[in-house]
């Protein structure tokens, strides 16, 4: 008997994971990706005749609350209607007992693939567009807790979407306290996840790595800083790899990734504001510049005006010398 090749084994494993879509409006087209909780399939919606993505729980579920967590992810996504957050169309349980939810199929690239061909300013603007939906979620009391380049998609039209809210939970709202709508979901989502370490090393805040129960939205600020670092250096956060990085940008990353949450930006919007200042050559709040740097920044910001004034003064000087001949 011939032994099975690795590729044959992999294919068998994929086939075993194939969801039983009998009785649903979907039929499988192909495998898309694997997440922590389940597998994402590209499926055809046979009623609306469109392609959508179906996230289905793994066949062998390690814990009973995983199905509830998947549905919780779908509910969180459904409650966050924002152009930067992937919309959910449907959720439920398949004939084989596995929980699923259906979402928009995003054709595009992950941030890691997309960012390589972009310039510095475009990268910063891209991060601003990641921070916007994140801030939107934070204001509504949700924390993502697994932000990383692989979980950010750039769509075919350049739209930026935050994906994989599988580890998201309801936290404290940054400013106005917890809303009634989020409070109603709070008990369930907190109970399932407390005490366990969930996240991705390198992009996970120190308090999240300690499985601290007091993790709040600032854990996402840490991840956002780590993503900025990755986007600017092309490498995972590491202080040694900052060569060539402008100091204000390095300071923004450092502030966002401070070990103490109290020293980080209070919100993704505040971090965005600092990045916007950097882009317009305005003073960045996270960085105390020297007089020399300030002069250079002011010159960069008002280059034409400075050149015109200098030309005027030179001309005046020339006339003064000429009149004394």
């Amino acid at each position, binding site marked *: 008997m011939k032994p099975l090749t690795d590729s044959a084994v992999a294919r068998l494993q994929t086939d075993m994971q194939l969801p039983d879509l009998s009785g649903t409006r979907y039929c499988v087209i192909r495998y898309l990706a694997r997440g922590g909780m389940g597998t994402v399939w590209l499926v055809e919606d046979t009623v609306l005749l469109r392609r959508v993505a179906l996230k289905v729980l793994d066949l062998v579920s390690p814990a009973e609350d995983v199905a509830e967590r998947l549905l919780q992810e779908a509910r969180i996504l459904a409650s966050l209607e924002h152009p930067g957050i992937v919309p959910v169309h449907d959720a439920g349980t398949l004939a084989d007992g596995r929980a699923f939810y259906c979402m928009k199929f995003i054709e595009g690239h992950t941030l890691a693939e997309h960012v390589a061909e972009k310039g510095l300013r475009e990268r910063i603007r891209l991060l601003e567009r990641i921070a916007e939906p994140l801030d939107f979620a934070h204001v509504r009391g949700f924390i993502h807790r697994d932000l990383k380049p692989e979980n950010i998609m750039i769509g075919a039209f350049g739209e930026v979407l935050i994906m994989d809210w599988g580890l998201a939970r309801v936290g404290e709202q940054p400013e106005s306290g917890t809303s009634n709508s989020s409070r109603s979901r709070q008990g369930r989502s907190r109970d399932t996840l407390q005490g366990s370490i969930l996240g991705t090393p390198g992009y996970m805040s120190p308090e999240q790595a300690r499985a601290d129960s007091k993790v709040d939205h600032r854990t996402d600020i840490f991840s956002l800083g780590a993503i900025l670092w990755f986007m600017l250096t092309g490498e995972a956060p590491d202080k040694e790899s900052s060569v060539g990085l402008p100091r204000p940008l390095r300071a923004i990353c450092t502030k966002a990734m401070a070990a103490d949450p109290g020293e980080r930006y209070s919100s993704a919007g505040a971090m965005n504001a600092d990045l916007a200042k950097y882009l317009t050559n305005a003073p960045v709040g996270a960085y105390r510049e020297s007089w020399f740097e300030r002069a250079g920044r002011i010159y960069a910001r008002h280059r034409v005006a400075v050149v015109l004034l200098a030309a005027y003064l030179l001309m005046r000087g020339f006339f*003064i010398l000429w009149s004394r001949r």
Partner: protein
Amino acid sequence: MNKVLFGLLLGAVLGAFDGMTAWFTPQVRAQLAGIVIGSTVKGLVAGILIGLFARKVHSLALGIVFGLAVGLVLAFIVAQLQHGYYLEIMLPGGMVGLIVGYATQRYGREAQPLRT
């Protein structure tokens, strides 16, 4: 600061500075006060005109051209009154107009609509 006020102030400051440089010319040093006052008034007038233009027309190129033209015309009038010094008066005058034209387009706040 709105564009008209900004143009007025910048025109006045540059005009005054322009006038004060006459101190370096011994032949006209005796009339320095008159030159400074005249140059400042010229700068004020140019600043108001250029500021009003910037409030109506939002174009950097047109703003610069208009500023240069206003600066040159006003400087030409002054040079006519002086019966000479055309180059020494018109070139800096045109330059001041150009700077004010650029600055009022680039900086200065748009006029806010009245709230009822």
